[in-house]
């Protein structure tokens, strides 16, 4: 009833191509932004930040990055964990090498370095497709983790083989290290998350996104229309790498603080982010958020209801949690193979006609 596009006329092409063409959507989006920036930081505590918000924001960035590659450009990648590790280690080396430079710049540079590495491992995509490409990117995953384990220069020759984020501040407020306030870490990640989502949205609604989708939908036709497949695929790898690298850097520096590469950035991380993208919806920025929320929140929710609410023993709850999450994923994919983003789209379609659907 209140969700209408009738009467919401556009008088310029600029208006028509904006991110939220429907006024109600736009308002809702501003509302979420205001709440995220102005309300949440004042009400959250340590538990909420570390269990819910930080992983959600950081995985959202990684999922957006992977979605550009898999959902928009159609190139399957199983190397996300490895590329996140590149971001983390690049950030670590920059933080320890140039401590006088702001961490903001370190994280962006770490994204840039990951973009380069990702581009390098994207080169096989010019020759191979589909499952075979997935296997090739799997090589990236194992090689990168192995490299960060073996080459001690990457972890500054520390005895434990771990990397630990030194304390850094932004405008006098600590954002990494043990002295970090929860709200500061949250805001820091939120800024990156919003910026990444905006950049990704702009890229995907413009010509770059069309080129990627053209390659995804029919690469031969795309080439005959004038899309340079080399440039389109490699730019998708690079940009995807940029976002994934930023996610890796934040994951290490802000969220975990100390990282052992095989544990934090192993193959299961690659799959986790890939599942987020698939469950959320391929080729949708909103889907990246929805998928990240689903896979981050669901376990937390289950644990709280089973252990906290029903008083079950922790180990039983932990096992049940695996089964329930797994079952729900299967159920979801059968009911809606196009992911949560499609469910959302259908819901909006219905709302538009509600309460008179005929």
């Amino acid at each position, binding site marked *: 009833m209140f969700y209408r596009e009738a009467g919401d006329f556009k008088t*310029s092409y600029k208006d028509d*191509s904006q991110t939220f063409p429907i006024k109600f959507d736009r308002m809702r989006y501003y509302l979420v932004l205001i709440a995220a920036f102005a309300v949440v930081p004042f009400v959250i505590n340590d538990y909420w930040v570390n269990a819910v918000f930080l992983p959600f924001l950081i995985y959202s960035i990684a999922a957006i990055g992977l979605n550009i590659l898999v959902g928009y450009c159609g190139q399957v990648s199983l190397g996300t964990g490895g590329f996140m590790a590149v971001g983390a280690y690049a950030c670590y080396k920059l933080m320890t090498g140039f401590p006088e430079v702001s961490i903001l710049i370190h994280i962006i540079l770490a994204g840039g370095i990951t973009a380069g590495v990702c581009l390098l491992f994207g080169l096989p995509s010019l020759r191979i497709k589909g499952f075979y490409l997935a296997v090739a990117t799997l090589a990236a995953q194992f090689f990168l983790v192995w490299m960060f384990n073996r080459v001690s220069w990457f972890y500054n020759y520390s005895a434990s083989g771990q990397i630990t984020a030194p304390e850094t501040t932004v405008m006098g407020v600590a954002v990494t290290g043990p002295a970090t306030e929860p709200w500061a870490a949250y805001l820091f990640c939120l800024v990156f998350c919003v910026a990444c989502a905006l950049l990704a949205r*702009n890229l995907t609604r*413009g*010509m770059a996104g069309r080129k990627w989708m053209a390659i995804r*939908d029919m690469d*031969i036709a*795309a080439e*005959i229309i004038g899309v340079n497949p080399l440039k389109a695929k490699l*730019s998708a790898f690079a940009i995807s790498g940029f976002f994934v690298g930023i996610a890796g850097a934040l994951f290490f520096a802000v969220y975990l603080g100390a990282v052992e590469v095989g544990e934090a950035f192993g193959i299961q991380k690659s799959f986790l982010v890939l599942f987020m993208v698939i469950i959320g919806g391929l080729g949708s920025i909103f889907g990246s958020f929805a998928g990240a929320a689903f896979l981050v929140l669901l376990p937390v929710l289950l644990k709280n209801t089973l252990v906290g609410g029903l008083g079950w023993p922790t180990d039983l709850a932990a096992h049940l949690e695996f089964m329930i999450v797994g079952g729900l994923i299967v159920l979801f994919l059968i009911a809606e193979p196009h992911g949560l983003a499609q469910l959302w789209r259908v819901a909006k379609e219905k709302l538009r006609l509600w309460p008179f659907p005929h």
Partner: protein
Amino acid sequence: MKDMDTQGYTTADGRKIGGVVMEMKNITLRFGGVMAISNISFDIREGEIRAIIGPNGAGKSSMLNVISGFYNPQEGEVIYKGQKRPQMKPYQVARQGIARTFQNIALFEGMTVLDNVMTGRIRQMNAGLLAQAIWKGKAEREETENREAVEKIIDFLEIQHIRKTPVGRLPYGLKKRVELARALAAEPSILLLDEPMAGMNVEEKEDMSRFILDVNDEFGTTIVLIEHDMGVVMDLSDRVVVMDYGKKIGDGTPDEVRNNQAVIDAYLGVAHD
């Protein structure tokens, strides 16, 4: 003959046909031992509708693929706008202003009609990735300007109502029209149509014919067309090339071709004694 190359001629219905824009010289294309095209030469003049006809397997589509750079012929050369074309990737050929449609529709199914047609504007849009990411300045300006051009074509082909529909949901006839729109959006100097009317009923064929003539008339686009429906070919085209088994067996106006004994034999068969 040299004069005609540059001056062109005027058709019976008063359209001005320009000089030669593309010339195929002794093209030979082999796939292993199979000779798909053998030693074929013909030219395409600016502003004309040039048809390529022939029985199944005559090599028509291969010819189109040679023009659009998808196949590189083993022998012969393609002369485009007075210059020999070096070996090129298909996307480079497209950037030179040669657009095409496909026999089996090759649209981007997951994208909306608008996005599909906008993709056709790739030649006109070259803002950098960074500008696009920030969506300011050149990127935004380009997007608006090209949207205007695309809307004209959408209007022209009467597909306004499906602008925001994903292409995968459209029926066959409309898809063909969207594909034409995408090719037109490139403002090509040569438009290649590979069986634009395959699988259509009479009404849809009439619509399509009208669009092809209108495009040629309104934008002065040079059109190269492969089609099986003889009635359509004879009505639309200014000159016709006839192929059979990879060889050229006729070339001329529809009337000349219709009365060519070799063409009649190829289509009706010859009695062997």
